[in-house]
């Protein structure tokens, strides 16, 4: 087992606590273990990249951390709540209150405008100011003039900005980003990365980025490297040293 504890924990509040997490899939008579006894913790405002080759278990880990799947063994405590025993509705509620997502392929609802897409998490939370909040955050990501555009009318970069706005509209404590720039060209990718980290700094959100991209990973405070479902290293980055 590889277990890496965070040495900066003491005084800060924990947002994510992963303990001895394993996931095994059954396929007929065969079983396939994609995560082995993974443990780590993240505190408020941390930024962390999960890096690894295809099939290393990155996305599975992300899904388990966000309560999208149930582990075969181990424990995930998200924002102080053990998500293991919760049912689907309760886990959805936790995600709505504390978690934001950014997807590689944007995942916008095609029948809703940019503004309406961003409003969705706020409306699901029952916020009366959903419209105003969505509009504010869209203006923040530079799409104040594209509020009524449908996803199909937006470029890839713009769609991902809408994705970012949607992720931040409820001011989540933790944001999971799965290859957020994987579908974008270099220039757009840089812009989105800057926006992502700017929002993260501004709002003090904990950020977990799953990526292949070493350069993107280097922008976080810490890199967790996965190989064949096991954490092979968990170390601070250069960025963490230069960050004030």
């Amino acid at each position, binding site marked *: 087992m590889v277990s890496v504890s965070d040495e900066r924990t003491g005084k800060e509040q924990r947002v994510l606590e992963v303990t001895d997490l394993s996931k095994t899939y059954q396929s007929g008579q065969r079983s396939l273990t994609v995560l082995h006894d993974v443990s780590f913790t993240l505190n408020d405002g941390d930024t962390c990249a999960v890096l690894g080759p295809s099939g290393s278990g990155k996305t599975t880990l992300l899904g388990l951390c966000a309560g999208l799947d149930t582990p075969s063994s181990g424990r995930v405590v998200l924002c102080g709540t053990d998500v293991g025993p919760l049912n689907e509705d309760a886990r959805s509620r936790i995600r709505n209150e504390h978690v934001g997502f950014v997807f590689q392929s944007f*995942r916008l609802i095609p029948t809703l405008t940019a503004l309406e897409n961003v*409003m969705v998490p706020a409306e699901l939370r029952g916020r009366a100011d959903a419209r105003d909040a969505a509009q504010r955050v869209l203006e923040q990501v530079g799409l104040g003039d594209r509020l009524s555009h449908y996803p199909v009318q937006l470029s890839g970069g713009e769609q991902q900005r809408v994705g970012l706005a949607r992720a931040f509209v409820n001011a989540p404590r933790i944001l999971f980003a799965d290859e957020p720039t994987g579908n974008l060209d270099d220039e757009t990718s840089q812009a989105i990365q800057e926006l992502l980290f700017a929002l993260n700094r501004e709002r003090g959100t904990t950020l977990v980025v799953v990526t292949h991209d070493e350069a993107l990973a280097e922008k976080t405070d810490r890199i967790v490297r996965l190989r064949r479902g096991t954490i092979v290293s968990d170390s601070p980055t250069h960025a963490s040293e230069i960050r004030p």
Partner: protein
Amino acid sequence: MALRDSRGSRRRLLLFVLSMSVGVAALVAINGFGANLGRAVEEQALGLLGADLGLESDLPFADSTEALIRDIVGEAAAGVGLDVNEVQARRTTFASMAYFPRQQATRIVSVRATSGSFPFYGTFETAPTDAADTYRDLAGALIDPSLATQFGLSVGDTMRVGQVYYPIVGTIEQTSSEPAFVSLVSPRVYVPLAGVDEELLAFGSRVDYEIFFRLGGIDVEALAEDLDGRLPREVEIHTVDREREAWSEALGNLYRFLGLIALTALLLGSIGVASAIHVYIQQRRQTVALLRCVGVTPKRAMQIYLLQASLLGLVGAAIGAAAGTLLQFLVPGVLAQALPFEIDMRLYPGPILVGLFAGVGITLLFAWLPLLAVRDVSPLSALRADVETGQLARTVRSPRRLAALVAAAVGVLTFGAFQGPTPTVGLAYVIGIAVVLAVLGLVAWGATHLVRKLVSPGLTYPVRQGLANLYRPSNQTRLILLAVGFGAFIVFTLLIVRSTLLSQVRLADEGERPNLIFFDVQPDQLEAVRTRVVDLELPVVEEAPIVTMRLAAIGGRDFRAEREGEAEQSWAVDHEYRSTYRAQLTETETLIDGTFVGTYDGTGPVPISLEQDIALELDVAVGDTMVFDVQGRQMTTLVSSIRLVDWNRMQTNFFVVFPTGVLERAPQTWVLVSRAASAEQSGGAQAAVVSDFPNVSAIDLSLIIGVLEDLFAQLSAVIQFMALFSIVTGLVILAGAVVVSRYRRIDEVVLLKTLGASRAVVRRISAVEYLSLGVLASTVALLLSVPVGWLLAKYAFETPIALPFGSLAVAAAAVAGITMLIGVANSRGIYAAPALQVLRGS
């Protein structure tokens, strides 16, 4: 390759193809029933007539005619050693009031007075069994079971017809010469001919006289031809061959009519097939692009999917044919009331093959158009999905698309012409259905656009998302609205027609309108009947004389001779006219042309007034002359006016009205019209008058309403059985559409779940979407069925439309509810789908 490629999609596609299977099942069931019907008519033709030869007349057979029949038939019979007196039977049929002393009730019945052992052939089943023979020996009566039920009659009770009392000896269970529904209008009563009250056969009553012969071993057709030229014109000659032909035609029309309804289900199913293939090809574009990348030609790519469509069509058609083969055994039960015999159902390969051919043919015809998209998939789209748009836009205007559209249209029209009662009716029917579907599609299109405009930011998220799903890209809103809307349209139209027909009769009972009629009153009874009615504290609203006559010529030409050679004579030519004479118009009549002459001044042709429809039917106008044969006397008349008659009132209405001063001395009967305040008063009055004047018959509105309700119940049971196929097709298409959308929605639901949507929110979105679809389908169906109902009311029934608001509201709510339930049931389990697939982008 075709088989390998379809792996994983077969089940979903098959569900859609099942929409076509329902139509095939209907087709096989109906055509299979038709084949059995044809055989049954062949086998049971003897029983349908009940004899080898029948002679029928609405006048008593004159002595000279009797002598002629005795000579001709007797000679033929003697040739094979038969005595004509021993092989004949007689039946005299007339309407009369039956009086049931124990119940102190009366009802108009159809009396069949028989002599001899008619029917010689076929079924004449009674309960108890021997009553079929004993009623003649015991001078008893056999009655329809409906009469026994209505009045609580049983064997041993007594009934009176005219002045003669009969013990009831049994009930008529089945006769091979009459379908059961004839008893709905007027229940049958069989009594021996000997002893019938002759008064009831007096002049003016509608009586049908028949003589039947059992002539085994004689060439009856040749004998009939011999008789054709020698018997008086009013005598109709029936032979087994002629009866077989008549029944084949009548029952053939019945089953072909049902075939049209099967055609409807098949057409609706074809839309399901087209839609399924369209969706399938949309989903397969990436695969097609990849195949193109590895060198598959557009033609070969299309062949792969055409082969898949053919195989699915064959599977769907086979399922339909198998279901139809089983279902055909149910059809005789549904049509039991309309069939004069039981059908021993057998399997015929013909209808099954036609069903298979129709299923595969329809699938290919309707799959062709969406399959054309395969040809236009660019290999480049394997790399860039947006390459497709321009290519598809060009396809819209391609000659291939046009050819596919024409082929589908020609195919369906040909099939309609083949399946319809006549090619013209079949074609008209298919075009009618196409128009209904096109209007449904158009209204559905408009409705979705309207919804798009109505979705306001003020709505809650689940409502907004549910409604937005109606116009989302690749939505199936129009398909679902077509499928559900068409089924709802059929149901709503049936409800409107039923309500219109019944309200037409019920309206007649409003206010002070007459609701009770006494008829067959002899002139010398008129004063006494009038007094009796007044004594019963009933008003005499109207009295009218009736003189029977036949049309002899129009405009100096022998009208009948001119039409002799024509295949179909107008009913108006041979009609026995029951005309009246009076000096003024009644309140149900409006003069629309000419001048109404109330009194004949004795000079020139007699000025008469014609009802509008009969004038149109006979193609005569004001100023034309018509010659009537008034019981042997030729009377030349001049059409002086045309009247519009409101037939919906329970009053005496006539095609031809003579002025006073012409027919007063002609043999006639009278009709007396009254109004009873209640059913009890009406029943009491009928019993009292019939008791005093046994030859007088009475009928009241409640009886007509009852008969109409019974008839409609029988008819609608048949129509609903057949409509069921279209409704089931609609439901299968709906189920197919929601299942396809389920696969598409999983992605979105999982995304919502990831963003924090609860199960309840997801369910609300689904409920809003499918409830909206159901409400839209109901609305669209109502928007179409109300005008169609109005057209039917105005032109087919000539009465104001009566909308059954309550039933329509319940039916519309049921349509919306069922649609929502199917939709919501389909979304069950989606919420539990693994959310990780969103992260993985798969």
